[in-house]
């Protein structure tokens, strides 16, 4: 972050980047909704849905939440619980298969 006293002239706008990320998010969402209206086999579609969901969440965290530019410590703090939740949910689903 700059400490310049006349920042408006020094800080470049990132609006372009933000809008591009937004367009990507919107397009993925549109594809998802379109896919629900087609008859793609569920198992195949689900793989896509999970991948899309991961991509969207990553885009928001990376660009909108600035994890790309900020300290890696923030990324670590966010990723540890995400990994734990993935593990927990997977184990919950596995134990569901046990009964």
């Amino acid at each position: 972050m700059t400490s310049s006293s006349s920042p408006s002239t020094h800080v470049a706008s990132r609006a372009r980047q933000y809008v591009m990320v937004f367009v990507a998010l919107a397009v993925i969402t549109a594809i998802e909704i379109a896919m629900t209206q087609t008859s793609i086999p569920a198992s195949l579609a689900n793989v896509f849905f999970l991948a899309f969901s991961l991509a969207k969440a990553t885009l928001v965290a990376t660009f909108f939440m600035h994890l790309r530019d900020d300290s890696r410590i923030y990324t670590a703090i966010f990723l540890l619980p995400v990994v734990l939740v993935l593990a927990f949910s997977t184990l919950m689903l596995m134990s569901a298969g046990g009964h």
Partner: protein
Amino acid sequence: MTSHSITHEDEFRAGRELSLDHRKLGMWLFLASEVMFFGGLIGTFLHYKATVPSPESAELDTVLVGINTFILVTSSLMVVLGLDSIRRGNRRGLLTYLGLTALLGAVFLGGQGYEFVSLYGHGITLTSSVFGSSFFTLTGFHGLHVLIGVAWALLTLGKALRGKYSAEDHVGVEAFGLYWHFVDIVWIVLFTIIYLI
């Protein structure tokens, strides 16, 4: 007195060396715990989705909720555009975008309310089945977070009106933004596991 004022400026030096702001770090830690909270609810939802048949889920209106998803994603864009404005010293831009954020958040809540009412009309309620319980609890807690987010957006808007933020000092806007984007991410995940899969 003088030595105290020096220590006051010097207080967060270790954080600056790590390029950490204590308010942002606190926010990220809070969000980490929120990930775990939603993780518990999501694990519950998935477990029941896998073990208890839920024919009611056919009543879910994916297109309506898809539009709602689009609205929430748009609101996230508004937040970053607002942050971008104040970073360049443009207070008017911040005010506009924060207002739009709160508005879009409210629209999202309206959409969710409409969805809830129509599901209740189909007999799907909190107490009708395990699916109903876990669906309304999970989306309800997310909705509660959006509601808090709208209130926070308005609060930030109020502070911005009183000129609290500037190109140099806008951590408050950033912290709000982190919360809002997190709520957005949670919705992206919920949309997938509830409506798409």
